[in-house]
């Protein structure tokens, strides 16, 4: 049962092959039995899950047609869930119980989906390996000596280990797509503003966007259909008509133009990853798509611009964690400054502190123009590269990540090497474009990710292009060892 995709499970529920309670219990049992190997969950919520499953079974019996009704899913622990701890992977919020649901959590509740629990993540979504979590690292189900990627590593590992058929995630610089690549999953980061950020704990507000991790593009379409909504509680959410992303999955690729940015195949790309991506290009050509080489000339500036903008925004976003109204508070503060400094120093891990300090530096008097303002100008140049490219091509294709999953500890002492993990994914966040990663091969028995980047609000096109690849190949059906 756990090897089935969401689309298959939805059919099974509707044909009464299984009930949601049985399905939910099955996944809860798997989590209880197996998650000690992966550490993909911070909080498991069996009682809530079973109650929701019972309600879903009633809805199904009454003829509910929502495809996610009764489907168990996991939420990244960055999304606020009423009455259930939302830690954001931080000691700071170890005791935090939000009195409200994130809009996307609410959307899944309304659709009848069942919440299995909250998944592990890099602290405040800052990391590319899931090694910064207060709750310990998450292990990659393909190779437990390796990282699952980050920051949505818990969601990725849970889906790859078949502990949940799908999971929510968030992506500020690659935090959905890079773990999808490293764990052999389909991960989509929608256009900035397509999905509400209300109730998603902010890392960098102008870059953060929620998305999904699933085992197929079809499942991603089903998940995104529920996740995407207009929300007047989020000023940056765009009032754009909703689409049925499953409706265009089967469109033909004949006549599609795919752009291949030359800058995405430069030094630093693992040769075997390059090979797998080149093979995928051939597959697309065989499906009727045209490919052409394009240039995104400011690509090399994406990581530098990002590591000014994201820390600058996070330095302010994380100021609210001060030990006064909620969250960690140090023992017996002797004065106000002591309260702030000790609560924050005890509550935050090293990477979070590092980014707060970098962001504080970039905004401080005398450096604002040289760093923050400059980065925002470069950001426009990066966006313009894409705007120009999309005049000639429908989608852009390249690798998701420079190499497959790496071993624990191999980059923790070198923040810059860790940051370069996101070299191909970061530009889409800066530009606000949708991006998706799908598996396109194995290197050393570890998955390789293929990245597709679409124009604004072209999620339907991206999922169509991904789905057609998955109809022609079976990389997405390969399962991590010892999961079946």
């Amino acid at each position, binding site marked *: 049962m756990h090897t089935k995709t969401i689309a298959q499970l939805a059919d099974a529920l509707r044909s009464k092959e299984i009930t949601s309670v049985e399905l939910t219990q099955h996944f809860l049992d798997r989590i209880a039995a197996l998650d000690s190997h992966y550490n993909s969950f911070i909080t498991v919520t069996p009682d809530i899950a079973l109650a929701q499953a019972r309600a879903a079974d009633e809805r199904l019996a009454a003829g509910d047609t929502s495809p996610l009704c009764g489907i168990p899913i996991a939420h990244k622990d960055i999304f606020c869930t009423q009455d259930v701890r*939302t830690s954001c992977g931080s000691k700071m919020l170890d005791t935090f119980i*939000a009195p409200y649901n994130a809009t996307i959590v609410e959307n899944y509740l309304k659709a009848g989906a069942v919440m299995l629990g909250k998944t592990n993540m890099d602290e405040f979504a800052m990391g590319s390996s899931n090694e910064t979590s207060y709750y310990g690292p998450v292990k990659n189900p393909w190779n437990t000596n390796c990282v699952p990627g980050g920051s949505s590593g818990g969601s990725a590992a849970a889906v790859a280990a078949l502990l949940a058929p799908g999971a929510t995630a968030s992506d500020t610089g690659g935090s959905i797509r890079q773990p999808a690549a490293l764990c052999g999953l389909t991960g989509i980061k929608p256009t900035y503003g397509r999905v509400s950020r*209300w*109730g998603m*704990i902010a890392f960098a507000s102008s870059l953060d966007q929620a998305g999904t991790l699933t085992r197929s593009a079809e499942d991603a379409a089903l998940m995104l259909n529920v996740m995407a909504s207009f929300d007047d*509680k989020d*000023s940056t959410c765009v009032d754009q008509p909703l689409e049925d992303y499953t409706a265009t999955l089967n469109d033909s690729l004949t006549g599609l133009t795919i752009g291949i940015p030359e800058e995405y195949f430069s030094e630093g790309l693992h040769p075997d990853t390059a090979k797998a991506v080149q093979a995928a290009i051939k597959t697309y050509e065989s499906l009727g798509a045209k490919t052409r080489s394009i240039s995104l000339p400011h690509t090399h500036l994406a990581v530098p611009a990002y590591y000014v903008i994201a820390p600058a*925004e996070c330095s302010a976003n994380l100021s*609210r964690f001060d030990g006064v109204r909620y969250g960690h508070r140090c023992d017996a503060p002797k004065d106000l400054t002591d309260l702030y400094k000790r609560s924050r120093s005890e509550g935050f891990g090293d990477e979070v502190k590092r980014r707060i300090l970098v962001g504080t530096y970039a905004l401080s008097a005398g450096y604002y123009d040289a760093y923050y303002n400059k980065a925002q100008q470069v950001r426009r140049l990066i966006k313009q590269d894409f705007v120009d490219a999309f005049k000639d091509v429908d989608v852009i294709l390249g690798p998701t990540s420079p190499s497959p999953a790496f071993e624990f500890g191999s980059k923790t002492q070198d923040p810059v090497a860790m940051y370069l993990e996101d070299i191909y994914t970061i530009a889409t966040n800066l530009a606000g474009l949708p991006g998706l990663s799908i598996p396109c091969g194995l290197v050393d028995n570890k998955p390789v990710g293929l990245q597709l980047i679409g124009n604004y609000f072209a999620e339907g096109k991206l999922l169509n292009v991904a789905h057609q690849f998955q109809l022609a190949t079976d990389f997405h059906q390969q399962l991590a060892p010892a999961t079946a």
Partner: protein
Amino acid sequence: MEWETVIGLEIHVQLATKSKIFSGASTAFGAAANTQACAIDLAMPGTLPVANEEAFRFAVMFGLAMNSEIGKRSVFERKNYFYPDLPKGYQTTQLEEPIVGPGVTNIELADGSQRAVRLHHAHLEEDAGKSLHEDYQGMSGIDLNRAGTPLIEIVSEPDMRSAEEAVAYLKKIHSIITYLGISDGEMSQGSMRCDANVSVRLKGEEKLGNRCEIKNINSFKFVEKAIKVEAERQIEIIEDGGKIAQETRLYDADKNETRSMRSKEVANDYRYFPCPDLLPVILDDDYIETIRRTLPELPDAKLNRFVSEYDLSSYDAAVLTTDRVTADFFETAAKVSNEPKLAANWVMVDLAGYLNKSDTKLGECPFTAEQLAGLIVRIKDGTISGKIAKQVFEGMCNGEGDADSIIEARGLKQVSDTGALEKLVNDVIANNPAQVQNYVSADDSKRPKMLGFFVGQIMKASKGQANPQAVNEILLKKLNEQ
């Protein structure tokens, strides 16, 4: 050496919106602690701000009243600092692109001249909460009800040259915001707060001296006192050969002195940057013009109209138009009585005196403008004398009802009946034969003065109710008959 004080004011005005600038929590004053602080106001993780349209409408109204350019594109920024009354660790405010650009307003000075005070800009921002310093287990208590209340911060150029001018400007701003109805302007409740930037220089000098910012002065009276005492302090230091350190100071009303606020002096670097949770607000010409068309009459226009329509002096008109409630009260009384000058006098002298003495606001006055007009009509039609009117007015202030019922109840009606008056005159003449003899034998030039004695006696006998004009006529006639 003659010194000159140079003053610029930063005035914070709470806007009278129902809900907060970025959340749907109520802004009502006086609620129990933290009962009007919602998840957004508390900066709970994952919450997001959405801007309140009414705050923008109010800010645009103010900008138009100040003849300012309206920022058709305005941008919220984050001002970063840690303080327990600032839940997010930053204040959402405007810096580079504010809603209201440069403008100007005129103030009336005591000598009848005018001075133009330029507005540097005005911007929208959120208010902070309050720290309560009573002892809570040895700690301070934080109430965040006020956090997120919309403010406009009104920043003047350093165009004022005395404490009196600063107060006149502050009163002008107060009258504009209350005329517009965008704030209740209650300084005692913190709806309007003032910071003053004060420096001194020798008269004729162009360069500005080092300035000190006096924070959070909460009444007109204290603004005047604080500026005066601060200017004196600075002059004294310079005359003793010292230099003024640029710093933030606090006014202590009990001691009437300013003192350095060292806690705020820790080198602050606010690290402003555009708030990524909020987008630029774009207003178009139609929107701005619609607001312009619906602006109420403003103090300057009303003043000019009172001068031309009611023939008031410009000083009187200025006093009456300082606030909208007074202006409306006067205008109703003037129209209903059809006696604008009398109405102006009663409002400025008697009514103002009563309100001041009893510490009452005009809005809580026990009688209406129509009832004041009723009193004025009774003076004009001779029912009561001006002197009796003061008694009736006292009755009205005590809540005894309108003028007619007080006149009736107290039997204060003026006696004009010739028969009754003749009897009074005859009695006085009969009872004072010596004075009558003196009068008769005096020459004409001395007689008017002597007449006063008899009038006084008659008025006393009538308890003030005799019609003085009629008394005069009858008295003259009777005395001439002697």
